[in-house]
């Protein structure tokens, strides 16, 4: 279980001064723009081994969650809460959603139960930049997330591509590769979440690059930078705040959202009406048809003769 305690965000001091300043500035601005925002909950989801936990650690600036490099992590989500100057940052790290070629329903179930009665401000959907292809499994993962939290979650989400510091395949320039990769991912999200094309374009999901590796290049002020020179941590946090302030509602996870509407309760009130309909329009009708059958039943000749209906015709 994640620690329910909210600890002081000491990790922020690990960041270079420039980063610290930027972060504080961004968060301060967020606090100004959106009233009474004092907490921010970030849910990190994605397939296994794409760098979810590393990203969490990178943002927090400490080894808050264990990164298990070669094995699948435990099935428990972790929530790390850090506060700084009256502002609380909650980051929920989740286990990988894929197990043995299928979406791991069990993991999803546990995540759901873990998130009960929590509000999600932002979803970080994590994937690797250096994966060239999208397949049906990605779509299933997206679908599973959509089914759990509803389509609205994608208005509060951010796609994070890790391993940003890569050399793209031959003959492709880094920016082109990034553009193509993010486009493919967006399309996958659109299909997986079954969002209409137009609707989707309106709320274009931002894609952010991340490099968690310790070998990440740094700039003059020792900030970790992406290949294009942007310091990625402040960039990520800025994107997050942008999403928070984009006008959509945060996702409140309650019983109803987890279980969906109880189909057993739907239409229950109409049962008496349905019953009446069935009696008058189905049972009665069949009864009438039976009566017709009896009337129309072709009687053998001897019976007709006996009834005097044959009229000596046969």
């Amino acid at each position: 279980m994640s620690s329910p305690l909210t600890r002081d965000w000491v990790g922020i001091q690990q960041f270079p001064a420039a980063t610290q300043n930027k972060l504080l500035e961004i968060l301060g601005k967020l606090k100004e723009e959106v009233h009474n925002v004092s907490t921010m909950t970030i849910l990190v989801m994605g397939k296994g081994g794409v760098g979810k936990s590393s990203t969490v650690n990178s943002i927090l600036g400490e080894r808050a969650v264990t990164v298990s490099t070669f094995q699948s992590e435990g099935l428990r989500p972790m929530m790390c809460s850090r506060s700084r100057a009256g502002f609380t940052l909650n980051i929920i790290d989740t286990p990988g959603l894929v197990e043995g070629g299928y979406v791991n329903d069990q993991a999803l179930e546990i995540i759901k139960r873990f998130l009960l009665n929590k509000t999600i401000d932002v979803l970080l959907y994590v994937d690797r930049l250096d994966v060239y292809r999208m397949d049906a499994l990605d779509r299933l993962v997206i679908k599973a997330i959509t089914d759990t939290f509803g389509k609205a979650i994608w208005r509060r989400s951010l796609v994070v591509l890790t391993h940003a510091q890569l050399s793209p395949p031959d003959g492709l320039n880094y920016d082109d590769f990034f553009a193509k990769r993010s486009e493919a991912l967006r399309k996958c999200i659109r299909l997986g979440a079954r969002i209409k094309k137009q609707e989707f374009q309106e709320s274009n999901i931002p894609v952010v690059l991340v490099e968690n590796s310790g070998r990440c290049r740094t700039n003059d002020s020792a900030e970790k930078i992406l290949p294009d020179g942007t310091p990625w941590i402040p960039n990520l946090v800025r994107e997050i705040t942008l999403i928070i302030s984009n006008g959509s509602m945060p996702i409140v996870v309650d019983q109803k959202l987890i279980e969906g509407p109880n189909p057993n309760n739907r239409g229950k009130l109409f049962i008496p009406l349905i019953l009446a309909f069935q009696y008058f329009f189905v049972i009665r009708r069949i009864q009438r048809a039976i009566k017709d059958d009896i009337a129309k039943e072709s009687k053998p000749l001897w019976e007709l003769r006996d009834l005097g209906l044959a009229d000596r015709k046969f």
Partner: protein
Amino acid sequence: MALYAPAQLLSAPIGGAASLSGRRRRRHSAQTRGPKPYPSPTVNARNHETLISFSSVPSSVSAQAGDSKPDPSPPSLETRRAKPRNRKTLISAAAAATAAATGAFFLNLGSPPPPPPPPGGGGGGGGGGGGEGFWSRIFSPLMANARDEEGGSAEWDSHGLPANIVVQLNKLSGLKRYKISEILFFDRRRGSLVAGTEDSFFEMVSLRPNGVYTKAQLQKELETLASCGMFEKVDLEGKTKPDGTLALTVSFTESTWQSADAFRCINVGLMQQTKQMDLDPDMTDREKLEYFRSQERDYRRRIERSRPCLLPVPVQREVMQMLREQGKVSARLLQRIRDRVQKWYHDEGYACAQVVNFGNLNTREVVCEVVEGDITQLVIQFQDKLGNVVEGNTQLPVIRRELPKQLRPGHVFNIEAGKQALRNINSLALFSNIEVNPRPDEKSEGGIIVEIKLKELEQKSAEVSTEWSIVPGRNGRPTLASIQPGGTVSFEHRNIKGLNRSILGSVTSSNLLNPQDDLSFKLDYVHPYLDGVYNPRNRTFRASCFNSRKLSPVFTGGPGVDEVPPVWIDRVGFKTNITESFTRQSKFTYGLVMEEIITRDETSSICTHGSRALPSGGLSMDGPPTTLSGTGTDRMAFAQANITRDNTKFVNGTVVGERDVFQLDQGLGIGSNFPFFNRHQLTLTRFIQLKKVEEGANKPPPPVLVLHGHYGGCVGDLPSYDAFTLGGPYSVRGYNMGELGACRNILELAGELRIPVRNTHVYLFAEHGTDLGSSKDVKGNPTEFFRRAGQGSSYGVGAKLGLVRAEYAVDHNSGTGAVFFRFGERF
């Protein structure tokens, strides 16, 4: 148990000696006689012959023919009913007709009351009611002959005369037994021998070539022939042959009457036979004239009083045609007419109908008098195992209400009505033997008493049976360890209070080594005639305790999913319902069900959720909940109704018609979690005959198109065990049970084309089933949890091999086909 064979229906009559002679006679006739008078089924033939034997007891023959007095003293019933007859016919040789008057009216064809006598009564039944008419005489020689044969041996005496001389009958020695090697018929009017054996005369002569006869027998034969009304004059002559045998020549002059061009058929059943007023030989001419006039008047009145007969106009027209073509009405023509009319009656099932008389001869209109077999009485009799009449336990109204009203007094007996009565009574399942016999009514002329004889089954019975069963193992293959001894103990108390109420209980275990594992019991109480046994409304009350254990098809994996741990649904409960039957197949049932449902896993421990094997080898236990309460045990009470409309019938062995079934389970909010639901299913099936065919036995069945639709839905609480499952031999063929999904709403459509081949049929089919997107509305979405498609189609071909269907079905989801063998019908 009762047999439906028509022969059975009319079985009893031949018993004891009567039966012996009857049988022998039949054999005899089969060998020597030409074609049968009418090609009717054996029942009729048998019935016919039996009834003839009835009326043609030899004693009556001799009595009749022997005294040529105009007023035969009445030693038996027959004589009392002697009628005025055409004197012309009586002029013939031996049968002396004193008054050679010409004013006779009709030819009595004998009025044997058609149905056979009761067993044992056959021999003496001659007095029963047999008219002594000529026609009966026609057959009587056969009887005599048969009797002779019984005692006779093959030995014979040579005539002892020179060869090739003609001997008059009275010149023969009374002590010798002559062998007749040849019988010839000589028509004096035509002056020629009658050729061909089809001639109706042959059946009248009981003598057979190569038979051995005494002089007395030959004389009797001659008397019989003379008195039968067919001949004006008839004579027998023997011609000696070198080998000591005799060649017999029957020379005759046929009776004829003036030509007629109209035909009328009247029903004289239950009418008093006209009494013959004695014709005093001392009457003056005037008196005689008066006498004949009064007879004529009587007869006209008789025609007026008679009821119309059933004979249809086309047949009457046919007969009229026969009359017109013939010109003069001859005895042979009348015989043909009689055969034609009787054939129609017998073909239509009026087994007791008989032509008794032709009247109004020598006028323009021939009147055919028919006794159709009017039922005067209906007798229901119970017999014990030895056939003694006993007082039955069953109340009579129970049986009466099963009888078609055509068997009630006042209706004409029809064998089909008898068969139906037999079927209906048999369906009561109360009797081990059922007989429906028509019997002549001795008190009423031409009347029939329908006698229903029943042997009751034992009221109480208990039974123990054991069996070995082979249970399919893990992969659907039986293993050695899966062979289990099983057994059933059952008891039954039938027909309580004689009102067909019954209590039936049984306990079954398929594994006697471990009976607690699956012990199924059943206790049923059935109470028919809820509205009273006299009320035509047919409602039956049923109450039963039951338990059952079934594998839930909801917890089944889709294609490519490893074995899903099975979930067993145990139900224990109490059920009461009332069934109202409208027809044999259409009915309306409504009632209450109270039951407890427990879901168990493989180890028989209660399970609350379905489970699925994880790729890692573990079991994921978080599947869909198995019960509504979530505890693995549900209790609930609900109302149930089912209305079935079924007008299907068999056309040459193939089902044709429509069948609609609506089933409704209405939760009442009583039970765990207060279940309130409305679960409904509507099934419509149409069997459409694609070609008109002639109906009848051994005719090919028509091709049939079967269309089938099934909609099911549930509003409200739906536990997984009540979810509709898709796939399986009765849902979508080509898939396993539940392989396509478990859902809240279901729609299945199927079509099947049946083409008859020889005496079975082959069929093509296509089926589709869909969950209508309602799988997600089942708690826990078992369809998705077990990775099922939620819909699917299949198509294929199959052949019916007896009870087994062999079919090749292609599963459209995966595109692969497989061969299946199934019992029973899909629809």
